[in-house]
C-alpha cells in the first residue's frame, strides 16, 4: 500500500509533469496516437459497416472477421508489424488500426441491421431515395450501436496504446516501461494509474455520448428495440 503513497507523491510532483519527457507530454502523445488510430479505423470501417448493414451483403464476412479478430493477440501483431516496418510510429498505428476496425465495423453493421425493416419500407414508401434512407433513417436509429462500436474500439485502442511503447517510444506506456526497466515501481504504478484514469474518463464521455444519441422515440411500447436493450457495454474481447 505504501507504493500507492509513493505513486501519488510522484504524480503530485509538478516537475514530473513538465518538460519533454514529462507525464503531460506522454499523456498528449497517448491521446494523439489513440485519436489518430480511431480516426483512421473509423474512416475505413464505418462506411463499410453501413454499406453491409444497408444492403445485407457480406454479412458473413463481417461476423467472421469480428470473431476471428478476437483470437488474434495484439502484442503479436504489434511486434510482427514493428519487425516489418522498423522502430517508429508506423508499426503501432497499423497494428492498432487492425485492432480497432472489427469493433467499429461490427457496431456500424449491427446498428444499421437492427433498424426495423418496417421503418425502412415506410421511408421508401414516402419516396425517400436510398441515400436519404441511410442518412435520415438508418444512421440516426443505428447511432447507439454505432457509438457503442466507437466506444469499445476507443477503449481497446487507449489500452493497447500503452503496449505500443514496447515498439515505439510514445505515450504513457513509455513511462511504464521506463519504470519497469529501472525498477522504479512508483513511476510504474503512477503511469499505470494515469492510463486507468484516462480510460475511465474516455469511457464515461463515450457512455454519455451513447446516451445522448439514443433516439427517445424508440422507448415507446411495441417497438422491436426499446431503449433498455441497447447494450451499455458491448462484450468485446480485451486484447491488451
Amino acid at each position, binding site marked *: 500500500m505504501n507504493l500507492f503513497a509513493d505513486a501519488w507523491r510522484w504524480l503530485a510532483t509538478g516537475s514530473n509533469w513538465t518538460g519533454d519527457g514529462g507525464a503531460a507530454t506522454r499523456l498528449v502523445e497517448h491521446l494523439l496516437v489513440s485519436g489518430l488510430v480511431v480516426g483512421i479505423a473509423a474512416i475505413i470501417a464505418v462506411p463499410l459497416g453501413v454499406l453491409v448493414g444497408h444492403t445485407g451483403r457480406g454479412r458473413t464476412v463481417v461476423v467472421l472477421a469480428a470473431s476471428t479478430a478476437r483470437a488474434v493477440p495484439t502484442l503479436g501483431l504489434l511486434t510482427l508489424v514493428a519487425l516489418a516496418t522498423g522502430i517508429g510510429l508506423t508499426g503501432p498505428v497499423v497494428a492498432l488500426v487492425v485492432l480497432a476496425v472489427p469493433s467499429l465495423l461490427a457496431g456500424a453493421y449491427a446498428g444499421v441491421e437492427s433498424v426495423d425493416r418496417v421503418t425502412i419500407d415506410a421511408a421508401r414508401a414516402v419516396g425517400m431515395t436510398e441515400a436519404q434512407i441511410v442518412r435520415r433513417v438508418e444512421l440516426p436509429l443505428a447511432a447507439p450501436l454505432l457509438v457503442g462500436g466507437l466506444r469499445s474500439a476507443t477503449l481497446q485502442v487507449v489500452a493497447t496504446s500503452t503496449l505500443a511503447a514496447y515498439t515505439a517510444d510514445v505515450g504513457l506506456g513509455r513511462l511504464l516501461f521506463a519504470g519497469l526497466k529501472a525498477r522504479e515501481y512508483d513511476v510504474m504504478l503512477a503511469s499505470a494509474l494515469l492510463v486507468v484514469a484516462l480510460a475511465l474518463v474516455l469511457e464515461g464521455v463515450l457512455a454519455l455520448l451513447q446516451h445522448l444519441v439514443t433516439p427517445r422515440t424508440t422507448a415507446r411500447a411495441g417497438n422491436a428495440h426499446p431503449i433498455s*436493450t441497447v447494450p451499455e457495454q458491448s462484450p468485446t474481447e480485451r486484447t491488451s
Partner: protein
Amino acid sequence: MKWLSQNYPQVVELFLTHLALSVPAIVASFLIAVPLGWSAQHGRGLRGPVLVGVGLLYAIPSLPLFIIVPVLIGTPLRSSSTMIVVLTVYGVAVLVRSAADAFASVPAATLDAAAAVGHTRWSSFWRVELPLAGPVLLAGVRVITVSTVSLVSVGAVIGIQSLGTLFTDGFQRGIRFEVVTGIVLIVALAVLLDGLVVLAGRLLMPWTRGGRAGRGGRAGRVGRGGRGARVVRRGDDAPVLAEPRLAGAAQAEEGPR
C-alpha cells in the same frame, strides 16, 4: 522452420504454460460471474450497480493492472498468480453481463411454474433456471475463453512466461518466424479451448442440439459469431414479454466484440 525445429521443446513448454494460465482463469471467472450475474438479475436494484461496476473493471487496461494487482493483493510481480487474478478480473467483467442476460432470458412464468410445482428457490435454480439460461451462458463463456487466451500474451512484456514470450523474444532478436509461431499457436489454442467449451455445452445440455438442428441447420454457416447469436435467438420461442431483452442480447452478441 529451422528456428522451430531447434526450439520446439521450449515452444511446447510455453504452450503448456499458456494453457495452465488460461484454464484456471476461465474456470474462476465462471464460478464468480454466475452468482454475481444471478444476483444482478434478481436482486432488487442490483442490476444497475453491478453492471456499471463490471463495466468499469472492463475499462481498465490490462498492462497497468499487471502492476496494480500485485501491489493490492501482495502477489509477486512476475507470477502466475498475478496473471490468473488479472485474467479473472476481465473474465468476470465480461461474463457477469452475459450471465445477467442469460438469467433474464428465462421467462418469469416458468419460474412461477417451478415454484408452483414445489421447487424451492435453490432447486429451482439448479433444475430450472440454470439449464434454461445455459445456452446464453455458454455463448458468454466462449467469448471469455477466446479473449483470455489472447490476453495471457500481454504478460510477456513484464516477464510472465507464456506463448507471448515468443513475441518479446522474437522482437528483440528480430526473428519474424518466432512471432508468427506465437500468433498461430495462440489462435490454435483459443480455437481448441473454444471447441472444448462447445463440446462440454453439448454434453451438459443435450437438448440444445435438437433445437439447433430443427432450425434449418444454419448453425454451421457463419461460424462462431453466428452460432453464438443463434443460441441467444432461441428466445424466438419465448413469450413476448421476454423478447425485447433477448433482441438486445442478440445485438450485443453480433455487435462490437
